[in-house]
């Protein structure tokens, strides 16, 4: 299969970034919008073409999807270790190309309406280009180091876009927090890469992931503190992934990241960048599965399940609609992680892997839709808070319907997309780990509940009297909503198990009816509860909030994780480490040096009397000196 043209997919947005960035001042805003949209359209068309070629024409040989590679050396470390740049085409990278293209294109179109009149309009599209480029580079990476490079680049694009409203103090703090927390996770990731490089002698996914290759076969060769070094490496790599995918306890940056413009939240903090962690685990799945008999996968599963539950509980209590969605994203990412964690490798055993990727795909569609819908609402009422909304269904029919579709999809109501992918996840969990299954099931109920709490509170509940009558958003914004709504309905019917599987061979997936019925029932119960609580204005929710008392308050304050981190960074690192070091440097280290200087001056002052300036003294010293030297010479001479 010829894959050369695929290089163009990332190149196009990069060129857009350079073009808009360099000619920033000279371009009219309207032009930059079109440049972005049409550029992305080209990338999207190429991605779809690539997907078609790969999945339906050339990709499959003897029933197994092949991997295609194209790469060249970027930098040499040693004779064997080097960083390559290139593209790797396999089922998950092609699938991610489609996801990134679709969401990015929709966000570009949407932003033309949403960002209209903003003074940084061109800058915004430039940053979007940079992000899209980096994300393509990440999903196409051929080796660990390449993925790390683009990993950092998506991180910095995220930083720039969260801090887009750079005069707002909260946005600055949020951007900084997002970057530093993920950087901390990347510190782990980097150590993991180093370990892998040192012990296996390669960074290439091809070699690492080969089940018969030396990296996997020899995992037990060296061990450290009771675990194989490769296991440690995978744990560290997972820390990196957990940081990017906002897994507990590295999740604290994601809710704050909502300070960015809403299209950015949809693109980066819901559909694409945050799934990079899931993608990373999937990318190295054979290693995770075979090394130490899947020890790290168990960690992945529990972290994922706990994050899913933790975030879903918090989501119920939040009143900022973007934060509800942020916690929802975290919860769904946990879902994807847990699916990977409970997955096997071959055939139907690998249903978890398939389900995770499937959910990644469908989630990208309906979560992007939810965010863009929320953006549409915010655009209309100029507030993020539920208290300022209500009854909006009358004013914004398209937003209402599309939002409802997305909410039904995420709640897992058949036949929408979320139902299919979530069902597969629950099947995988049920087959491997009952505890995780029940957590997943409970989270499914919570998801339906908080999502419909959100939906009813925005569009029903009360007839808020608005100062300015909210209007439906312009076509540039509603069009992407409609497209994504259609995708949220139909993407569930894609037979994912044919295309994206752990062993790349494809298998028949069947709906497991009992489990599907249970999951759907739980979801519907959630919806009904939300209906009772939030459809009409009443004080039920306040009453129950009071009954739950401290638990409600903890959840509302996000279990105080922000405060804990603040304590560690501000009070301990800043006050107890950094400040004393600075003081130590000034007073002790520098003081010693100055002390030496001052002592020298003192000594010279003491002995400077010798240099009296009187000729007689010098003459005296001179004579004495000559006599001494003469005596020494004579002494030496005679011996």
């Amino acid at each position, binding site marked *: 299969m010829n894959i050369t043209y695929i290089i163009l997919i990332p190149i196009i947005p990069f060129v857009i970034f350079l073009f808009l960035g360099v000619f920033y001042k000279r371009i009219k805003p309207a032009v930059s919008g079109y440049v972005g949209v049409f550029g992305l359209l080209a990338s999207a068309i190429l991605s779809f073409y690539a997907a078609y070629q790969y999945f339906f024409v050339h990709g499959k040989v003897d029933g197994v999807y092949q991997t295609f590679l194209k790469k060249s050396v970027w930098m040499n470390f*040693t004779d064997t270790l080097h960083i390559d740049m290139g593209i790797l085409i396999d089922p998950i990278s092609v699938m991610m190309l489609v996801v990134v293209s679709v969401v990015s294109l929709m966000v570009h179109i949407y932003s033309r309406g949403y960002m209209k009149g903003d003074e940084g309009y061109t800058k915004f599209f430039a940053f979007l280009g940079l992000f899209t480029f980096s994300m393509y580079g990440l999903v196409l990476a051929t080796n660990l180091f390449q993925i790390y490079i683009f990993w950092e680049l998506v991180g910095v694009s995220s930083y720039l876009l969260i801090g887009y409203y*750079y005069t707002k103090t909260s946005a600055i703090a949020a951007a900084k927090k997002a970057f*530093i927390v993920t950087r901390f996770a990347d510190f782990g990731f980097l150590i993991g890469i180093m370990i892998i490089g040192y012990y296996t002698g390669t960074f290439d996914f091809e070699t690492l992931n080969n089940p018969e290759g030396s990296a996997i076969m020899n995992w037990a060769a060296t061990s450290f503190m009771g675990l194989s070094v490769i296991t440690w490496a995978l744990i560290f790599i997972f820390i990196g992934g957990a940081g990017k995918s906002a897994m507990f306890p590295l999740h604290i940056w994601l809710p704050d990241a909502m300070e960015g413009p809403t299209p950015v939240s949809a693109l980066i903090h819901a559909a694409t960048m945050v799934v990079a962690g899931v993608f990373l685990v999937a990318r190295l799945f054979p290693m995770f599965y075979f090394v130490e008999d899947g020890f790290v996968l168990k960690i992945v599963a529990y972290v994922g399940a706990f994050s899913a539950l933790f975030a879903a509980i918090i989501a119920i209590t939040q009143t900022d609609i973007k934060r509800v969605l942020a916690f929802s994203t975290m919860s769904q990412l946990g879902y994807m992680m847990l699916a990977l964690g409970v997955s096997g490798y071959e055939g139907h055993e690998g249903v978890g892997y398939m389900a995770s990727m499937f959910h990644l795909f469908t989630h990208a569609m309906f979560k992007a839709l939810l965010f863009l819908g929320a953006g549409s609402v915010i655009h209309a009422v100029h507030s993020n808070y539920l208290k300022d909304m209500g009854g909006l269904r009358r004013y914004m029919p398209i937003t209402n319907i599309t939002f409802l579709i997305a909410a039904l999809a995420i709640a897992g109501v058949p036949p929408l997309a979320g139902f299919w992918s979530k069902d597969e996840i629950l099947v995988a969990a049920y087959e491997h780990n009952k505890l995780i299954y029940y957590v997943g099931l409970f989270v499914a109920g919570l998801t339906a509940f908080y999502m419909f709490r959100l939906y009813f509170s925005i569009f029903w509940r009360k007839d808020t009297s608005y100062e300015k009558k909210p209007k439906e958003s312009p076509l540039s914004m509603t069009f992407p909503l409609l497209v994504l709504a259609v995708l949220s309905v139909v993407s569930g019917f894609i037979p994912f198990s044919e295309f994206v599987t752990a062993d790349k061979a494809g298998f028949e997936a069947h709906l497991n009816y009992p489990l599907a019925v249970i999951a759907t029932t739980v979801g519907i119960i959630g919806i009904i509860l939300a209906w009772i609580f939030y459809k009409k204005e009443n004080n039920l929710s306040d009453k129950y909030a009071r009954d739950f008392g401290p638990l409600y308050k903890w959840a509302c304050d996000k279990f105080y994780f922000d405060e804990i981190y603040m304590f560690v960074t501000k009070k301990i690192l800043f006050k107890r480490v*950094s*400040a004393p070091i600075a003081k130590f440097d000034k007073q002790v280290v520098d003081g010693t040096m100055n002390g030496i200087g001052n002592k020298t001056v003192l000594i010279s002052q003491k002995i400077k009397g010798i240099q009296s300036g009187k000729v007689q003294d010098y003459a005296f010293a001179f004579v004495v000196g000559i006599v001494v030297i003469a005596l020494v010479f004579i002494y030496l001479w005679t011996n």
Partner: protein
Amino acid sequence: MDILSLFIIVPIITILVLVFTKNLKQARVVSMLGSVVQLVMAINLVFAYFNERVVNDNIMVFTKDVVWFEHFNIHYNIGVDGISVALLLLTAIVVLAGIFISWKMYDLPKEFFMSLIVLSVGVYGFFISIDLFTMFVFFEIAVIPMYLLIGIWGSGPKEYSAMKLTLMLMGASAILLVGILGIYFNSNADGGALTFNILEIAQVNIPYEAQKLFFPLTFIGFAVIGALFPFHTWSPDGHASAPTAVSMLHAGVLMKLGGYGVFRVAMYLLPLGAIDWSWVFIILSVIGVVYGAFSAIRQTDLKYINAYSSVSHLGLVLFALLMLNKTAWNGAILQSLSHGFMTALFFALIGMIYERTHTRDISKLGGLLKVIPFISVIYVIAGLASLGLPGFSGFVAEMNIFVGAFQQKDTFMRVATIFSISVIVITAVYILRVVGIMLMGPVKNEAFLKLKKVTWYERFGILLLLIPIVGIGVAPLWLSDMILESLDPFIKGLL
């Protein structure tokens, strides 16, 4: 005339012409022309070097050897390998950028530019010397003008800073001289004549006892100027008092003499000493790396932040040199280059900000992105480069260092390595702190709204420094391979 001697002769001619200039306009044009010629020569040297390498596989190429002081066997002996070629290029770029940044140096312009170029003569000479003694002479030539440049054109407690800097560097020189003489007097260990020629000494088996004695002297002697903890304190005060171009040259080029000298002299000539002593200096350099970064978090003066950041970044250079393998050494040289460009760029930007706002205190600045967008955007880019973002030179250098360091497998080295990797987080903290406080946010001071826009010569200076940062970051292969090839003779001494 051979193409290396020109690197000394051209600046000397420039200085001679400067004597006859009458005012700022003439002085700066002359200096600029001289430096442009220098830069063209440096770029030409890179190409010439690649061509020469194809046919010539000596350790040093373009060599020239003239007896200077026969009695002690001192020669004017010059030549370059990939490492010195890269550093010459760095010097030429930073000097030219420094001259652009000093375009409006109204106080004693002639003398200022002369001192600046004298300094550059020392640096060029240092990088091309093969003879230890000549090298030491050039080292001193580079250090002495610093005293004048800070003492006369500086600001704040300039006499104190200049004195402190000079005394500490001179003290180090004294130690270094002992080390060099120690090497010299052992260079006949295999029965030959005493020599200062580095290449010849490298072939000699200097006795283990002597190596053990003289390695720390040579190492410390050079490393003080490379900001080795705890001998780094001259650097923050010195930078803070120095005028912009001097800070640029100082941090960008002069501090590189330290790492280069450590590598070329201490590590190359005394490999057994290096193996013996490495643990001590690894501890010191790792402390420097982490400690510098933590100190930088707490500073409020932009120049202090950058000075401590330099302590951290250059600590990595020394750390990498002590890892005793090619990958880490490659990283050390790349880090020297990368830090040279980055820190010069930082000081240039800090100078521009100071010139406009008359303060370097970040708590008094705010919202600069709105008022001086060009400078601020470049500052953000420089900051991202400094925190090791891929696509910029810092990433390339740091990754070589970390991967190289990871080849050392005993626990002590592993712990040291992980500590040094942790700076990727701490650096992000202090860089983003400055960006957040100083560049973003609302405009703090009404007076800032009327700040002068960036001028053409400032743009030139900035772009000169930015291009290599991005260039190395995006396409590192040619440079890193050029350096990597030159490292072979060094590794042989250790095997």
